[in-house]
């Protein structure tokens, strides 16, 4: 049982490039989330999904897109990367509105 798995761990992007952060969970959780964490700040919700085929914007969705074609996978797409998107990204999952379990994070730098 691997929990929540994110890839890549580290990535450097140039301004204007695009990329996808991959996330998979093997706990059969219906809810999945993407958060970003900036230094000294609390986690900010980017997008979330309450089940396959359903996605909704969180607090800071601009510049990102998501899809949820299966229960297990929830990729986060960055289009036209900007320096403001330099951050640590965490994928997470939960069974309903219960404990959220996090992946190990993806460190993204946009230069």
């Amino acid at each position, binding site marked *: 049982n691997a929990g929540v798995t994110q890839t890549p761990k580290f990535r450097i992007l140039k301004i204007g490039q695009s990329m996808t952060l991959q996330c998979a969970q093997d706990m059969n959780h219906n809810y999945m989330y993407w958060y970003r964490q900036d230094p000294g700040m609390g986690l900010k919700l980017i997008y*979330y999904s*309450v089940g396959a085929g359903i996605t909704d914007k*969180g607090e800071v969705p601009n510049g990102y897109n998501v899809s949820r074609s299966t229960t297990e996978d929830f990729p986060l797409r960055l289009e036209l990367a900007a320096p403001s998107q330099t951050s640590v990204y965490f994928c997470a999952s939960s069974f309903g509105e219960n404990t959220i379990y996090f992946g190990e*994070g993806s460190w993204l730098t946009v230069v």
Partner: protein
Amino acid sequence: GESVGLHLPTLSVQEGDNSIINCAYSNSASDYFIWYKQESGKGPQFIIDIRSNMDKRQGQRVTVLLNKTVKHLSLQIAATQPGDSAVYFCAENMRNYGQNFVFGPGTRLSVLP
């Protein structure tokens, strides 16, 4: 759970002493709270949770206290060890569909030898 900027509050304790980390939450309607531990370079790790129908919950070496009157949570760590050094933050369930949890910025716990 408002941001406190780039510098997290820091708590320094001697190894073997007890630690108390505090958190103020924002919504009186929140009914579920979680404490997480985050080590450098890693994802947040669940420590303990508590529901609003309880005032206290104990785990292994950890205790969470909930004071709903003043909207305050605390995490007590007994006999603090070097491996406890990390950032600790609380999360409250705002019961807002999928946007349910709000996370505080955290407190950095530093354990001195």
